[in-house]
């Protein structure tokens, strides 16, 4: 389920930077473990508010966003990002336990570029992150 378009690369082309936004501590640790092993630099946020603030504060090549989170859910965070000219082009993958068509459509309407259903496999996550950011898997 993808709507991936080519994105401009980070001008400081070295390691690609990924913002992981999920309220699950173990889930964030898992994403970090997988993505760092693939050569990405990972920043974490525990809810949509924190994620939105971090996304505004520094550039990222990719955001991985959970849907069901306290304070601000993933849809709301994405809408806020897409409404901000400075960061609206940052590609985003939403990850949710919900696999229904309406959930996928809602995520794309909010501004997602790709939708994944939990649990996400290591290889799948790495491949999608590399595909979207243009990074070479290590």
């Amino acid at each position, binding site marked *: 389920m993808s709507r991936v378009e080519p994105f401009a690369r980070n001008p400081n082309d070295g390691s690609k930077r990924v913002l992981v936004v999920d309220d699950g501590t*173990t*889930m964030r640790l*898992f994403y970090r473990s*997988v993505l760092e092993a693939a050569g990405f630099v990972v920043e974490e946020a525990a809810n949509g508010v924190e994620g939105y603030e971090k996304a505004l504060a520094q550039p990222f090549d990719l955001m991985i966003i959970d849907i*069901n989170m306290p*304070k601000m859910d993933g849809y709301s965070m994405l809408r806020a990002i897409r409404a901000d000219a400075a960061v609206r082009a940052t590609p985003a993958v939403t990850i949710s336990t919900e696999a229904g068509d309406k959930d996928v459509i809602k995520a794309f309407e909010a501004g997602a570029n790709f939708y994944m259903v939990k*649990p996400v*496999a*290591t290889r799948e996550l790495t491949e999608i992150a590399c595909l979207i950011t243009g990074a070479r898997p290590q």
Partner: protein
Amino acid sequence: MGLVKGPPPAAEAVPLAARDIDALLIDLVAPDSGVRRHAARDLGAHPDAAMALCDRLQAETSSSVRAVLLTSLIRRQSPAVAARLTTFLRSDDTPLRNAAIEALQEMPDAVAPYLQALLVDPDSDIRIFAVNIVATLRHRRAPEWLTVVIRSDAHVNVCAAAVDGLSEVGGPDALADLHALRHRFADNDFMEFAIDTAIRRIGQD
């Protein structure tokens, strides 16, 4: 010189108990979000306003008013309030659902009678929300409920949420069930990682 009266007390200075519940209920649906927010705050002092606060939570679109509604509902917590909030878990409105989860997490005794049913709900998403509530619930039976989930639930995401919860609230009693779960989802990367993390954290406590 005659006595000079001071200014009348401002509305904010009126004791909460003196504010008429009927007037507050009208304010609770006012077009101005500031008026709704003040009404939501003051209705937290009225035992009879709990269901009206639940109704407003379902309809409210302002995040700041919703936050105050949650605070007032937590203040007015009861089994009836908890029962009403659990119905919001089935909503397609994500902020409403998350608000219900946040409120229920703060009312352990009120929500406890409903958790057993939610944890075996036919809808796996409801079971995940129930596990998320249990995982941060300050209730003595929380570790036991999560252990039952990893022992019996067939859905990988429900078990993953329970493992995450056990990594926060679980004790040595959960270790055997965590090891057993590894065999049930042997080909799942995340489950393997989550179980290892939970066992490591429990071992550190």
